[in-house]
């Protein structure tokens, strides 16, 4: 089976700083792929290229056989690409349910005219998406109790789950998670890992995730790409990466 996402010889520079140099990576369909590396290695830059925030100086990014780079950021979710952010990017002024509903934006069809009348199709799709969220998302992520609360004051771990819920609503083919375990204790990390694994096994979602915590990620993913200073220094199975001398150097800081 061809990879779902193929990143090929991608380079990106900010001014004189080379954030990414000839990065190549591929994400196999139906698997969990992890990008790891120390801070500043270029992990989030790679995500931002895939999301459409940055345009690389060279290289290609193919998703399911289509070239992603000419597409603006807002056109990419329609292909089935969802993501979360390292610093939770929820909308504080909206309730939990409304935040999650925003994840379905690209699939809903109401326009200003049908929305202001709120009859027929506009009302129906709104009811359908609410039912979908209530049945398949809220229970799964343990959010039912708080669906009508404003997200502003909720605890960090809960906000992380809401952001995951928002990304899952569109039933993405590729789910990109930027540091899903950041700031969590061991217990919460375990729980989040379970959610992620269930996304793959139950919904056939492909996951690409970033972390700098090696241990959590190595146990979860089947393929690992290690970045350091904007270059791929190793890629392969967790076992291969764990014993790779370059990776050990990068993490332990040996010369």
């Amino acid at each position, binding site marked *: 089976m061809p990879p779902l996402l193929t990143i090929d010889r991608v380079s990106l520079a900010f001014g004189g700083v080379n954030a990414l140099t000839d990065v190549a990576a591929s994400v196999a369909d139906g698997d969990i792929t992890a990008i790891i590396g120390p801070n500043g290695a270029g992990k989030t830059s790679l995500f931002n290229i895939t*999301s*459409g*925030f940055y345009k690389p100086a060279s290289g290609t990014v193919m998703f399911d056989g289509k070239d992603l780079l000419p597409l*603006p*950021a*807002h*056109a*990419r*979710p*329609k292909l089935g690409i*969802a*993501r979360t*952010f390292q610093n939770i*990017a*929820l*909308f*504080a*002024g*909206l309730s939990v349910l*409304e935040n999650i*509903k*925003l*994840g*379905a*934006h*690209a699939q*809903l069809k*109401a*326009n*200003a005219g049908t*929305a*202001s*009348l*709120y009859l027929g199709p*506009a009302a129906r799709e*709104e009811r359908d998406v609410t039912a979908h969220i209530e049945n398949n998302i809220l229970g799964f992520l*343990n959010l039912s*109790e*708080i669906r*009508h*609360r404003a997200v502003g004051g*909720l*605890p960090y*771990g*809960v906000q992380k789950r809401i952001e995951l819920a*928002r990304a899952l609503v*569109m039933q993405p083919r590729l789910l990109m998670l930027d540091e899903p375990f950041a700031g969590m204790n061991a*217990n*919460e990390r375990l*729980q989040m890992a379970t959610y992620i694994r269930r996304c793959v096994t139950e919904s056939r979602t492909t996951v690409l995730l970033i972390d700098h915590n090696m241990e959590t990620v190595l146990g979860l993913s089947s393929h690992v790409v290690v970045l350091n200073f904007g270059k791929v220094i190793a890629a392969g199975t967790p076992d291969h990466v764990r014993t790779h001398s370059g990776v050990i150097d990068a993490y332990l800081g040996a010369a």
Partner: protein
Amino acid sequence: MADSIDIAAGKTTQLVPGRQWAYWQVAGWIALIIALVALPATASGYVLFMATLVAINVIATVGLNITVGYAGLLSIGHSAFIGVGAYASALMAIHLGTPLLLNVMVGSAAAFLVGLVFGAPSLRIKGVFLAIATLAAQYSLYFVFQQWTPVTGGDRGLSVPQVDILGMGDKGFYLLVVAVAVVLCIASRNLFRTRIGRAFIAVRERDYAAQVLGIDVVRTKLLAFGLGAAYAGVAGGLMGAFLRIVNPDQFTLLASVFFLAAVVVGGQASLLGSLLGATFMTLMPEMLRATMEVLGPPLGATDVAGFLSPLREVIFGAMIVGFLYFEPRGLAGLVERVRALATRS
């Protein structure tokens, strides 16, 4: 993980009073509509005049709240869009003699298109800088109103033929304006039950996160500007037909500030806020005048009229600063506080 859920669950116990509140809310809205419809039967000409003016200003304020409150695009050119609607609608009435509702719709469509044009700067700039860019709309449209004499009548403006709704005179006009205002309030509320309204708020709060959800930030911002202007256009068309005159002095920067103040004082991103703000701002000068007429002479202020105009502006300014500082959610925020107190006890 389990702990955090318990904390969250503990705070949802107010759900039941919340539902009761929802019933009260619906009852309140129905009572308001009944009162509005019943008003002409008892009210004097003056009260009816003010009520019509309030309803027209509500329409314009609801529109500005879409642009400024929900979508977060600061605009101080709103009265110019009201002007576009007023002139377009008046010209239709004068030259084509078409019915009022059609004129108002055309005026609204014209304002929508002009709003899209002047909303374009919002794609690149935000906040105060955007507000200054919208000044361009204010001044350039005012210039057109004033200088394009063959069409707009210049400084003297246009005199609009009288419309008689169902032979009911002022009462008929009032009822029509209230009906339009109610429909447009419901439309704006509906908007925020769907993806369109959510997209406005998402763009206001985090435009990068909005993009990865598939929201086209450019289209969303333009739509927010256009819709706000379309509401302004409706208000303008009705205003022209109501006052039976359209001239540039109605569409000054001060008028734009008036509507911005209505949004801020009433409550940003809130329908109730638009209603309260527009009502308060329209009636405040009148309440002030009444107060001064009673209090003025004993205090030695004989020239009440001369005193009133500067005082009004001082109070406008103080209200805006006061609300921004003490209650950024405006009058609607005060209502919310009262509700929270009531449901807690």
